[in-house]
Structures are given as structure tokens and as C-alpha cells.
């Protein structure tokens, strides 16, 4: 990969956090740092704002999607048949 190098000194805590992240994702520590930079500094996508959609729809009856999602999905799939 072409690019520029940059000396980076980390605290023990920061180093341990990156090492742990690399172990978890099966990637190198360098890749973890590059990924963090991409996500937090380079991405050109706008931040998320779902607030204009809050309560935009009513289904006309109470739901509890946390507890009943699977049942609701089964109903939805049944309706497709």
C-alpha cells in the first residue's frame, strides 16, 4: 500500500484496546487504526438523523416489537402467501 507514515505513541490502555479490537476482528492493529480513521474522520456520508421519522406511522393497534417480532414476522409472511 502506498501512503505516508506517521509516528504514533499510545498509552498502554490505548494500545491494549487496539490489540483487543484486532484480536476480535482477526485483523492487524494497523488495520484497526486505519478503520477508525476512515469511520470517524474520512467518511463523507452525512450523520444520521432519524428524528423527522419519529412516530411517522401508526398501525392502529398496540405492538411490542421487542417481544413479538418473530410472531409479527410470521404473520407478515403468512400474508404474502
Amino acid at each position, binding site marked *: 500500500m502506498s501512503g505516508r507514515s506517521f509516528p504514533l505513541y499510545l498509552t498502554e490502555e490505548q494500545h491494549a484496546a487496539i490489540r483487543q479490537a484486532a*484480536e*476480535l476482528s482477526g485483523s492487524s492493529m494497523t488495520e484497526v487504526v486505519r478503520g477508525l480513521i476512515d*469511520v470517524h474522520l474520512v467518511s463523507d456520508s452525512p450523520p444520521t438523523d432519524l428524528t423527522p421519522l419519529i412516530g411517522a406511522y401508526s*398501525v392502529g393497534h*398496540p*405492538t411490542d416489537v*421487542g417481544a413479538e*417480532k418473530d410472531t409479527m414476522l410470521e404473520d407478515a409472511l403468512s400474508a404474502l402467501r
Partner: protein
Amino acid sequence: MLFADAGALFAVLISDDSHHLDASRVAAENRESRERLWTIDPVLTELWLLLRRDLGQVRADEAVGGLTKQGLQRESLRAEDFARSWQFGADWADQEFALTDRQAFSVMERTNRLRAWSYDKDFAIIRLGERRHHPLEIVR
């Protein structure tokens, strides 16, 4: 980066849901923090099915499209994510994790993004990593 599952997105959109007030608060906090929200396509398919059941296809399309227009990001699944999903099923055989959830766990593990917005108990149960050392940070 905060992952959103279908239940969380449904609860934001639907005023009748029991988690709507909590979800509305999370959406407002998310806007203030400017933390990016992401999901995977299987979650959006689940959400579309849930919405279509009561709202019909046109409004389900409108709602799911609205979420992406508002900046909800879609992370693509890779071949290794599918493989890891099956492994989650075998490793956690005493649980009944849905395939969509296992795919989400796989992408979270691969990308090391461990924050999840969900009202599903399975997200509080799962532990990621080969040694199952890493719980998700649940937002609700």
C-alpha cells in the same frame, strides 16, 4: 457507529409500539451525538415485512427508503459473514438466534463495532470473539 436492528427502527417509526418513547429518545440522542447509525440489508428486509403487514407496500417502501435518506448506512455482508453466521448457530445451539441477528453479530465482530440499538434479548445474550469475551453494548 451504532448498529440498529429491525425492532429499534420499527419502534422509532411506529407510534403504537411499546418501545416508541424509548426509541424516540435514542433517535434524538443519536442526532445530538452525530454518531453514525448502520444496519445490514437483511434487517431492512425484516423491517419492510413488519411494516408491510399493517401499512401496505407503498408506505413500507416509503418508510424504509426514508431511513436510508436520513443517513442510515448499510453495511454489506461478505462471504465470511455468512460462514460466521452458521458458526454462531452451531456454537450457540442452546439459543434460537435468528439468521438475521447472527449475520448482524458477524458483521459487528468483523468490524469491531460493538454498540447495538435493540430491544431483542438475544443482543444482550450474545458474546463475540473466539473466546466469547465480548458482550455488546446495548442501547435502548
